[in-house]
């Protein structure tokens, strides 16, 4: 047992360094995906045929390709084609951004659509215009619907970062593998990494529960 913790202390700087990169990857990707997802959702709801078609195409493509293949294709495939060497961190942020943006866009679109059309009709019948109706009535109600799946997507993207160890980003999984290559202690080192992911994700999940409860409360009181 003593040995287990001694080894942890030994590995900790490198693991924390990896964890930092994991958080940067997930954080940057999610911020960008959030913005891109909003734009895509506006396309989907625009009632402009070309934009709707683009949205559908984008979502199908992204949902149909595994993150790992997408990352490998971008980093090695596109890299070779254009004869450039991608920065692995940049390539992984692009990959995760594109991936999460499609799912977030679906969440945004679904949330807006889930608001009862009667709410819109009531607002419009009172003389409120389209934008006021959206801002005052639809979006506040949609946000409540969207928050749990948004946080789920955050968790998914956070876990997907580990897949991008395949393109040699020095994130938590990659750093664990590097340590193991040196010390041949996979049981211990992977358990440290797993614990770190777990702590991060449980914290996020608890935060999600807290937000959800607060929103439920806000509705009836």
């Amino acid at each position, binding site marked *: 047992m003593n040995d287990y913790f001694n080894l942890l202390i030994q590995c900790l700087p490198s693991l924390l360094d990896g964890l930092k990169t994991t958080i940067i990857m997930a954080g940057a990707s999610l911020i960008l995906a959030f913005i891109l997802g909003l734009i895509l959702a506006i396309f989907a709801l625009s009632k402009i045929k070309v934009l709707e078609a683009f949205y559908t195409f984008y979502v199908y493509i992204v949902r149909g390709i595994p993150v790992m293949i997408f990352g490998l294709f971008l980093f090695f495939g596109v890299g070779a084609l254009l004869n450039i060497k991608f920065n692995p961190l940049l390539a992984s942020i692009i990959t995760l951004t594109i991936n999460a943006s499609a799912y977030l866009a679906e969440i945004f679109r679904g949330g807006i659509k889930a608001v009862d059309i009667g709410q819109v009709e009531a607002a419009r*019948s009172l003389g409120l215009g389209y934008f006021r109706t959206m801002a005052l009535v639809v979006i506040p109600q949609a946000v409540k619907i969207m928050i749990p799946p948004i946080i789920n997507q955050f968790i998914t993207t956070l876990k997907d970062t580990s897949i991008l160890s395949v393109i040699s980003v020095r994130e938590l999984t990659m750093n664990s593998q590097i340590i193991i290559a040196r010390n041949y202690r996979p049981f211990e080192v992977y358990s440290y990494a797993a614990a770190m992911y777990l702590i991060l994700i449980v914290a996020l999940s608890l935060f999600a529960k807290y937000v959800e409860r607060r929103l439920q409360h806000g509705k009836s009181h």
Partner: protein
Amino acid sequence: MEKVIEVKNLHKSYDSLEVLKDISFDVTKGEVVCIIGPSGSGKSTLLRCLNRLEEIQAGDIEVFGTNINKVKNLNKFRENIGMVFQLFNLFSNYTVAKNIMLAPTQLGLMNKEEADAKADELLAQVGLADKKNVYPDTLSGGQKQRIAIARALAMNPKIMLFDEPTSALDPEMVGEVLKVMRSLADSGMTMVVVTHEMNFAREVANRVIFMADGYIVEEDNPEKLFTAPAHKRTQAFLSSVLKPLDS
């Protein structure tokens, strides 16, 4: 009498399904018109055309002499036409007070204090002064519908449209809503009411329109329409809806 609504040769289709076929009728100021008829006859669709919640394919709808399908500022125009829905459609993210005050304050008709005073007045009028600060999901159906009426009245509309306002209510709550509507009618409000409440139509309406299959089959004063309907279709409908009450 001044005509406030004039509908001429209105046609409305959903794709290839024609739901309103050559509808024409007028409503004069202060009149209460009830539209009755079997489900699927187009009554609700007709009502929703009057404030352009539905687009039409042909015909003219004039409200206060303005063609509602050509009006430049539709939002401004809708302020004159209050609407009450079958499923209430109270804004679930706002309190009762905010539901009532939202549109008048947002659209610059009243400042916050004025709107607040108006909300108090209207809540007293519909008998729900004690519900001012609760959220809609804590109210019964009848209470929700009375709040919905108050919300529409807050805009000081000149016409009120009611789309089956009691159809989604438990039977014991129908009366409280009809009472509010009746006193509104007594106050001289111009009202168009799509309803299945035959007694209300009989007692409160100045005129009753019977619709079936997308047509206006006949219209008359309630006394005549209910006791001596001219058309077979009307007779059949009335005998089917009135019979359970008699037996």
